[in-house]
């Protein structure tokens, strides 16, 4: 079964420092991977996705993620954190294509990012 793990409930970083939010996955076949951000009392905002191609994916708001097939990881990164980046971040994997697959997203438990001034 497909699954996603976010090993850290919370990540704390000082403004201006680089940040990393970790995600590991388990899938059969090629993974379709996503990062979403959620601000309080809001829905999910799409940050970036990996489907195929370059292992370093660039997304919205200066975020990027590195796909590592050997380590089955898809960590979210940003070179310089902003206080406004403080939010809840979700990693997700989509069912791989195939007969009967629905294309549902399977989410991790989420990581709260706290950026302090």
């Amino acid at each position, binding site marked *: 079964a497909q699954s996603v793990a976010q090993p850290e409930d919370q990540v704390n970083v000082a403004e201006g420092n680089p940040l990393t939010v970790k995600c590991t996955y388990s899938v059969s076949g090629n993974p379709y991977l996503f990062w979403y951000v959620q601000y309080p009392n*809001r829905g999910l*905002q799409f940050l970036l996705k990996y489907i195929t191609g370059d292992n370093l994916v660039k997304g919205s708001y200066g975020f990027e993620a590195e796909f590592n097939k050997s380590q089955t990881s898809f960590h979210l990164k940003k070179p310089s954190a902003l206080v406004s980046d403080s939010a809840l971040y979700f990693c997700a994997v989509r069912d791989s294509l195939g007969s009967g697959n*629905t*294309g*549902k997203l399977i989410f991790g438990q989420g990581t709260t990012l706290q950026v302090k001034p």
Partner: protein
Amino acid sequence: DAGVTQSPTHLIKTRGQHVTLRCSPISGHKSVSWYQQVLGQGPQFIFQYYEKEERGRGNFPDRFSARQFPNYSSELNVNALLLGDSALYLCASSGTGGESHGYTFGSGTRLTVV
């Protein structure tokens, strides 16, 4: 161009009641999915519809049902509400069956069951 719109934004219901949540996808998107997000957890898949047909169903009881209309909008219905149904219900639309595109989420409906 409007994003995914959900209504109502907030709702309070009593145990045993019925609720209907509504979702309008992005114009041109034919696929709608529903997710339940309980406080402190990641969203859980409930249903996906594409071209008015159910494409998938998550591990939810039969009290949960949904449908998609000819204009691709969708309704999620929950019968016999339980306290545990209190959650943020998210709707997501995608441009095809979701094959390689990201999903655009609405802001959700916050359901509180008392």
